[in-house]
């Protein structure tokens, strides 16, 4: 049973079981069937308070100091039974403000201060490090006692367990990571962890009770026998004595410290406040938790007495009595069970504490820095939960590593309880900030900061520093040889044990600075509102009644006077007149009558219009309570009003911006609808234009097919029509495709210098046949000395053909005339194509460049053509850097002009640019 090959696998298997329980509870929680929503589980999880300090250390303490070990359990019992309302208030506040840690609570109360959150976190880390070291030491010691040969028990250090303590730290780190950082929960609820910790509380209680019963009733024949034998022993009898007057101070100090620790320890805050599912659970815990404490302490004193008796009065190894007594009696299986119980006590504490600290490190230390430096702003899409989990995992490792390092430094000399008390005193520094914070509205951020820094500094000097330095010899600690700076007797205050001494000085510094600075500093607006919400949590619904309770001390006329100061005399007078009339009260009574609660509420509403609801309440309340509104209060109200005005101005700007955006959206939508309508129209027109030639083709094809008796002449004429209409259809399809490509920007251009005269020749010769048939004269005026044009020759020919065939369609048959003229003009070549057609009215001149414009004006007299030619020409010309426009008077013909860049000027401009 004592073979490491048995102990190690059993321990690991036990941890594995814990993990399985946690995993199961998490899964149940995910499935919505939580196993931890129960006052019993809640109470058992609070019992994480009982660590290896309780399990091993209490016996050690009892063997030296008698009954004073009980103070550590008396404090929490007092706090929970008598001070339950404080904890309920903290839970209420935390639920309302979504508080995730003790650092969060303090920071939130004092205006959501990052600085304060960071400070609390740092204090917690440093303060808890000894406590974690304590657990490592307990596991290491108990392991050595259990596995070492009986001879080696006397000197656990000889076992060379130091490196194995590192292994314990690493294994616990891994388990904490597995328990606490599997996923991120926004409420910071860790149901799996709570379930595992509750289970551990059961195991450690049963293990300790079993050991106690065995020792009391197995080794001795009950309490009576045991205590009688103890009374006979001289070294034991001293423990029975009632505490001396001199140690009464220590009793009080320890009780106070543990009272504060029950809600200031980060892990207790975690299980009591953060993991609390329902406030009613706490009401059950008020009697269940003290019961647990009673049970686990039942056998502490008997075991201590038995240990002393068995070890000849030596308390050197008293911390391990609970394990060594069964071992010495040959009960190895029981010893193994006790070891597992101790392991439960230690791991429970380490897991919860490291998770709570890691949450604080992540939320209150690292994230604010990352946020401030904008590291998180970049890459918004990145999954930040991965980063959060990584920070927490690193945090857990860091916390355990610190614990291990501290363990290394203090070595073996210090008893478990002394180490724990150092931690208690550290976290007790949070108590003034919390208690003043939730009961005193005037406590300020600066005060809290000052108190924490002061208290923590004194703690470091009077407790941490001596524990690190004065481990071996009781050396002189006074710096500069000044007795006044003795960390155990500051300013020559002697006669106190180190803990009481430290408690006295830290609390003096902490509370003194907190209250002193708060009195002389002012709160910011956010701080003030948080302070009100914290102090008045749960009172909201009873607000009017509370004001009403004060009624009867203030005269109605005073209220009118007050209102006049804020809203003006005239308005206040009118408002009160109306109020009195509505309630059927006489004006003359105003002087003498006391204001009732309805009148107070009316005044508050009246003031709210001027200074906002929160401020109005402050003003009315302070008047009602008889405190005149001081200049300071007024300034505060004005500050707040300014802030509100600032907000509303921002809000106004925002809503104006929003209106503008809405307007823009509306316009964009209208444009889109217009575009959609145009697309619809376009499609319909394209279809119409395609159907027209298709109609002729089909008709004549069918006629030819159905009438074989047609003459050769007719046959040839009809076929000719079919061919022409097919060509028209092809042209139209090409144009539609061209236009689509142009609109999509996919039409390719080969822009280069070319001779414009050649392009005009090409276009006119293609049309010669048609022109001759209709008897149209074409007149070219193209100077031979023209500079080269710059563009796509084929596209220019396309434009020319378009314009020429357009003109051809409109000019009168037989006497038609078309003129083409080219002139250089301002670095461009201007091509003008004139005709003697009917002309285009002013109102249509712009629209003809739209797609299918001719189709939209049935009365324009346009005989044929798709209506796409000009739209395409315009796009082509503009793409080549030119422009196109029309000049026309009805009845006097039409001239289309378009321009193209001159190649040389293009080249010159290129050179100039170089």
């Amino acid at each position: 049973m004592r073979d490491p090959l048995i102990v190690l696998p059993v321990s690991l298997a036990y941890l594995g079981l814990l993990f399985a329980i946690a995993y199961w509870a998490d899964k149940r929680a995910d499935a919505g069937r939580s196993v931890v929503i129960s006052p019993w589980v809640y109470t058992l999880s609070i019992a994480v308070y009982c660590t290896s300090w309780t399990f091993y250390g209490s016996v050690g303490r009892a063997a030296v100091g008698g009954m004073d070990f009980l103070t550590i359990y008396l404090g929490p019992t007092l706090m929970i039974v008598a001070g339950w309302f404080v904890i309920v208030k903290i839970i209420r506040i935390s639920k309302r403000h979504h508080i995730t840690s003790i650092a969060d609570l303090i920071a939130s109360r004092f205006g959501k201060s990052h600085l304060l959150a960071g400070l609390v976190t740092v204090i917690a880390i440093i303060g808890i490090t000894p406590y974690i070291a304590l657990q490592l030491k307990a596991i290491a010691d108990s392991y050595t006692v259990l596995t070492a040969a009986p001879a080696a028990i006397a000197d656990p250090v000889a076992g060379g367990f130091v490196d194995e303590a590192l292994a314990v730290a690493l294994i616990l780190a891994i388990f904490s990571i597995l328990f606490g950082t599997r996923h991120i929960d926004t409420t910071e609820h860790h149901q799996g962890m709570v379930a595992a910790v509750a289970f551990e509380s059961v195991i450690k209680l049963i293990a300790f009770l079993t050991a106690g019963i065995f020792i009391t009733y197995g080794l001795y024949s009950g309490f009576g026998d045991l205590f009688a034998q103890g009374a006979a022993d001289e070294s034991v009898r001293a423990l029975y004595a009632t505490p001396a007057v001199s140690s009464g101070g220590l009793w009080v100090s320890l009780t106070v410290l543990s009272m504060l620790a029950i809600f200031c320890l980060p892990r207790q805050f975690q299980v009591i406040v953060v993991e609390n599912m329902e406030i009613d659970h706490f009401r059950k815990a008020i009697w269940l938790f003290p019961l647990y404490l009673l049970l686990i302490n039942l056998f502490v004193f008997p075991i201590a007495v038995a240990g002393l008796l068995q070890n000849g009065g030596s308390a050197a190894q008293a911390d391990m009595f609970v394990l060594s007594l069964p071992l010495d009696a040959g009960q190895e299986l029981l010893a193994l069970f006790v070891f597992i119980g101790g392991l439960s006590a230690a791991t429970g504490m380490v897991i919860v504490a490291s998770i709570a600290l890691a949450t604080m490190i992540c939320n209150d230390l690292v994230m604010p820095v990352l946020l401030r430096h904008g590291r998180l702003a970049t890459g918004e899409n990145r999954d930040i939960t991965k980063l959060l989990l990584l920070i927490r995992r690193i945090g857990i490792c860091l916390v355990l590593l610190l614990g291990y390092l501290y363990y290394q430094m203090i070595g073996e000399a210090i008893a478990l309880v002394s180490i724990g008390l150092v931690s208690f005193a550290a976290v007790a520094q949070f108590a003034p900030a919390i208690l003043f914070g939730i009961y005193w509205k005037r406590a300020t951020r600066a005060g809290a900061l000052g108190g924490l820094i002061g208290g923590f500094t004194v703690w470091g000097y009077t407790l941490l520093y001596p524990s690190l330095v004065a481990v071996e010899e009781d050396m002189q600690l006074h710096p500069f040889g000044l007795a006044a700076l003795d960390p155990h007797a500051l300013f020559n205050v002697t006669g106190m044990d180190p803990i009481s001494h430290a408690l006295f000085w830290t609390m003096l510094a902490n509370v003194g600075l907190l209250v002193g600075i708060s009195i002389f500093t002012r709160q910011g607006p956010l701080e003030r509102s948080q302070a009100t919400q914290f102090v008045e949590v749960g009172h909201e619904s009873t607000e009017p009644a509370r004001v009403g309770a004060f009624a009867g001390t203030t005269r109605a006329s005073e209220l009118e006077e007050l209102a006049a100061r804020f809203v003006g005399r005239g308005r206040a007078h009118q408002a009160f007149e109306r109020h009195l009339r509505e309630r059927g009260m006489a004006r003359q009574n105003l002087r003498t009558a006391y204001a009732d609660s309805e009148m107070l509420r009316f005044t508050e509403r009246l003031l709210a219009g001027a200074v906002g609801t929160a401020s109005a309440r402050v003003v009315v309340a302070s008047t009602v309570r008889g405190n005149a509104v001081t200049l300071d209060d007024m300034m505060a109200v004005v500050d707040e009003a300014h802030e509100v005005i600032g907000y509303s101005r921002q809000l106004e700007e925002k809503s104006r911006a929003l209106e503008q955006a809405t307007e823009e959206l509306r316009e964009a939508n209208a444009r889109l609808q217009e575009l959609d309508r145009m697309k619809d129209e376009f499609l319909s027109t394209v279809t119409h234009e395609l159907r027209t030639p298709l109609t002729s083709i089909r008709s004549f094809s069918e006629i030819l097919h159905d009438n074989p008796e047609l003459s050769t002449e007719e046959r040839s004429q009809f076929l000719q029509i079919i061919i022409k209409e097919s060509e028209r259809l092809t042209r139209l399809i090409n144009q539609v495709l061209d236009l689509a490509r142009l609109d999509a920007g996919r039409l390719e251009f080969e822009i280069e210098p070319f001779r414009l005269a050649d392009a005009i020749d090409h276009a006119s010769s293609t049309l010669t046949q048609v022109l001759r048939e209709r008897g149209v004269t074409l007149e070219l005026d193209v100077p031979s000395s023209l500079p080269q044009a710059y563009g796509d020759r084929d596209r220019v020919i396309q434009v020319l053909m378009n314009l020429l065939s357009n003109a051809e369609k409109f000019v009168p048959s037989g006497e038609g005339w078309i003129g083409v003229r080219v002139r250089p003009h301002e670095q461009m070549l201007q091509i003008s194509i004139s005709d003697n057609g009917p002309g285009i009215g002013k109102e249509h001149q712009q629209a003809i460049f739209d797609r299918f414009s001719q189709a939209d004006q049935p009365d324009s007299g346009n005989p044929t053509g798709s209506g796409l030619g000009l739209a395409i020409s315009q796009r082509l010309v503009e793409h080549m850097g030119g422009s196109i426009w029309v000049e026309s008077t009805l009845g006097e013909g039409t001239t289309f002009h378009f321009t193209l860049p001159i190649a040389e000027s293009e080249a010159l401009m290129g050179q100039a640019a170089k």
Partner: protein
Amino acid sequence: MAGSVLIVDDEPNIVLSLRFLMEHAGCEVRVAHDGEEALRMLGERRADVVLLDVMIPKKDGYEVCQTIRSTQDWKDTYVIMLTAKGREVEREKGLAIGADEYVTKPFSTRDLSKRVQEIVAQINASKA
């Protein structure tokens, strides 16, 4: 008795094909190239059947149809709207305005000829 048909369209080739078809069907054919001309020709002498395109210059097919329907002398005239405007709304508009039939281009020459012959036969039967 040969029925009289008025073709109203501005596309020369379509007019040519319609004239051929109607003459082959044994009708007496007249042609108008725009809306005003159509109404003028109807005023000179009524027609049994009007083949009416919608997209014609000066007065469009809908107006011409409306005028025909609101004129007492022409109320027996059978109006076939013959147009390349193929959307359902346009068809409904044509029928709502008073067209007797709405035929979308391109049409079947055989069906159209047959239909006109039937109509002419009916008119003759009702007169007899």
